[in-house]
């Protein structure tokens, strides 16, 4: 763990396990909604976004292993080649792990820019993978996904830091 003064999370309490688990479950449910047509290409990957949030803020609990696990789950759910989401999730989480010290020094909106780039890179990997398998490019609407994902980052940050989620732990620890 880095103890640079700028890393605001360095000395803060770990997030409650219950919050981590329930946020991931909700994100998974959002991903499992029957997206179709235009929204199918443009909807952000909620699960990846939440995974990246916890990868940045809770290095100890959420890492590449969880990304791999949830990625396989999304592969089955979206009926794509097995291992495809797993690979992109693992790479995205790795990038956030590399950048987290830098990211956490920035304001939430600057963080969102970085997350947007990470989401874009993971999208590029999945597109290249599918093109190499002989699929057609599904259209530029795909580019909205990382964009919307980056827009949601401040919201995720705000939600995860709401005092109602933190208070209970505070009382426990005292």
């Amino acid at each position, binding site marked *: 763990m880095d103890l640079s003064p700028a890393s605001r999370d360095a000395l803060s309490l770990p997030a409650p396990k219950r919050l981590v688990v329930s946020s991931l479950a909700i994100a998974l449910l959002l991903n499992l909604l*029957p997206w179709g047509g235009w929204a199918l290409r443009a909807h952000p990957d909620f699960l990846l976004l939440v995974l990246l949030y916890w990868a940045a803020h809770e290095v*100890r609990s959420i890492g590449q292993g969880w990304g791999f696990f949830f990625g396989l789950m999304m592969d*089955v759910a979206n009926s794509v080649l*097995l291992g495809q989401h797993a690979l992109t999730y693992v790479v995205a989480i790795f990038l956030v792990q590399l950048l987290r010290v830098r990211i956490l020094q920035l304001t939430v909106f600057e963080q969102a820019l970085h997350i947007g780039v990470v989401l874009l890179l993971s999208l590029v990997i999945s597109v290249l993978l599918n093109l190499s*398998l002989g699929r057609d490019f599904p259209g530029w609407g795909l580019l909205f996904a990382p964009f919307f994902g980056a827009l949601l980052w401040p919201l995720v940050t705000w939600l995860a830091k709401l005092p109602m989620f933190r208070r209970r732990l505070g009382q426990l*620890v005292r």
Partner: protein
Amino acid sequence: MSGYQEPFFTRGPSPLARLTFFSLAAITIMIADHRFQALSWVRLGVSVALNPIEQGLAMPGMTARRISNYFTDQTRLVTENRELQNQVLELTALGQQARLIQAERTHIDALAVTVAASKRLDWPGIIAEIIRDARNPYARKIILNRGTTHGITAGVAVIDGSGVVGQVTAVGLLSSEVTLSTEKDQPVPVMVVRNGLRAVAVGNGREGTIDVPFMPLGADIQSGDILVTSGIDGTYPAGLSVATVVQVEKNPAFPFAKVIAQPATAPDHHRFVKVLLRASPTAVGAVEAGTAATDYPITDVVSIERKTGVATITNLGKRETRRANQ
């Protein structure tokens, strides 16, 4: 505080080591899934866990659709009813003709000792409802509400009232996934009704059109020709509508004519489809024997060997069509 004390330094492999490990694992899984289709049990297992959740999430949309169906206006119902009645009349006529033909055929077969050929029409099937589209932006697939518990296996054919819809490419316990015949590289062995010319209709990934590749320039095919399944692959029974030829371009600069056809069905318009369960092996053999016995001018353009989703077009260019899955 002691209960929440975390180790001060991160331990275990470095992020880069983890990345290497997990990426290699993911790539191995991809190869196993793509090349060897070895991981269908993983799919089945996970889909068992996810299926009830997805059903629950799709519920509001389904309910809304049912309610809006309930309140459809009278006039639409009346027109629809009239159309259906007309269809019933047409089909009854056709059915009677078919019965006559079959009766004649059995008679002839009894003489020719190829009785099995008359079993051509015996393909059991079950009706399934289309629940939703699969969330896959790269290939259009539809999800049905019937799975292995209802006897569906990967590779079986799916049809609707007007013709071939596609082929089941993955099954869960209570749901299955159908790759449409308009999907890229999805082959259907066909024959021209007018003259019995054999060919393969291959999807191109665009809805509303289907290609018929490898037609020699001299082949007798023209706009307006109806393509039906030829039955030589054992997946689709013979005689189902597949498409109508809309455009034939014969350019001497190329060895093959460019033939574009319009699919017989549009799965957006229907809620129910029929899944044809695998017929008994003898019946499948009979289908092949039956078609070979007809005196159509067999051009031998293409011979198709199909297991679940793998098709090889052998005689021309040794082109291997990629697995239809995903």
